[in-house]
Every structure is written in C-alpha cells, then in structure tokens.
C-alpha cells in the first residue's frame, strides 16, 4: 500500500509541492487541495512540477476547491484527476497512510 500525499499550499508561495514530488515514491498519490490546486493548472511557471511527476505519481485535485477559485477544469494539466469530498475519503481509505505537506 502506498502513501497519499496532500498539498494545500500554492506552489508560487511555498515549496511544499516541490518537496512532496521530490520525496514521493513511485506509485504513491498526491491530492492537491485548498491553495494547492493552483499547482494543477497548465501553462504556469509551476506546471512542470506536476507535469514532470506523470507516470510516477497519480495526481488528484479537489473539485470544490477549484470551483471556489474560479479554476475551470479545462485548465488542468493532462492526467490530473478531479475528485469530490467523497473521492477524497476513498483516496484516504485506499492508501496505507496520509502525509500532509503543510
């Protein structure tokens, strides 16, 4: 069983997403939530972080947090999957533990 990593900080303000991706094992998952959802957007100065993790780590993003910030789903990096709160619970249940990158 692999870890679920959660990142709730903007990649433009904190290095949480960068450190998480650097230290996450292949086969683990990342859920971007709160201000962390900005890391899932393509065409930004930080898009290469998540785009570079493709094939190694499954990346999820919390839909209600995207909606709150006016980020439409067509702006997401290819391969990023949107989940709702129920999906968040499922992810927690499917992984061995959760590591929060605050």
């Amino acid at each position, binding site marked *: 069983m692999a870890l679920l990593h959660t990142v709730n900080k903007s990649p433009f303000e904190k290095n949480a997403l960068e450190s998480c991706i650097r230290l996450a094992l292949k086969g683990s998952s990342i859920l971007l939530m709160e201000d962390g959802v900005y890391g899932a957007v393509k065409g930004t100065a930080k898009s290469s972080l998540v785009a570079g993790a493709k094939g190694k780590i499954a990346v999820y993003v919390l839909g209600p947090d995207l909606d*709150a910030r006016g980020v439409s789903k067509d702006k997401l990096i290819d391969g990023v999957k949107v989940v709702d709160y129920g999906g968040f619970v499922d992810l927690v249940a499917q992984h061995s533990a959760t590591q929060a990158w605050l």
Partner: protein
Amino acid sequence: MSDEGGTIKKFMYVNRKAPYGTIYALESLEVVLIGAAFDQDVSLAFVDDGVYQLVKGQNTKGVGMKNFSPTYNALGDYDVNKIYVEKESLDARGLTVDDLLPLKYEDEDDDWAEKDSICVISSAELAKLFDQQDVVFSF
C-alpha cells in the same frame, strides 16, 4: 501637522495572497471598504498570488465559504478605482486580464463615463507607484 484632518494622503493596499486559503484577502477587502469612508487617495495593488483574488467565475458553494469576489465590483462606488495588477504575476500564472473580474467605475470628471478600474502594469511601473505612497498596507 496642524491641518492633519484635511490632508489627503496616498494609501496603497498591497495584496499578495490567494483567496480562501488564508483570511488575508477577505480582511484586506474589509479594510479597504472601511477606509474608503476617510476620503483618501486610495489605490490597490495585486501582486504574486494576490492576482488570484480577482479571477472571475469563483463559486464557493462546494467549500461552504462566502464568495466575496462580487464585492470587488462595489469598489468603484466607493471611489476606489485605481486597481493595479502586476503583469509579471499574471504571466507566471498563465492568466491574462480577460481572466479577471471586469471591474468598472463611473468617472465624475468625464460625464460619468464607465471606465475600467483594473490597470495591468509592469513590475518597474509598480515599483515607482510604491515609491509615491504615503502609507502602504500589506496583506
């Protein structure tokens, strides 16, 4: 200092945080609206993640928080109509002025013509604006 009460100062509110993740954005907006009652020369700057505050299409139903983005539309009615957004911050986030709220004000010196409040400027231009201020509030 004797005519302090009648002196108009240049106030700038600098916003550098994304909305919802922290309380800074909402608190800044509250302070701007309260401060608008004091008839000062007010301008707002949106830099770094602060530019996310002005992104249109915010819908907070799912997160159970108040969507305060429509309140930015009221700034024009409070004579807060100098809203500067740093171009470099927009570029880094893949955003353009078309992604932002179309904030307007009515210009009393031009037969109440409706004009855009948002002005996208470069870092160099913003640096000069900062230098002209009497008071800078940071959020």
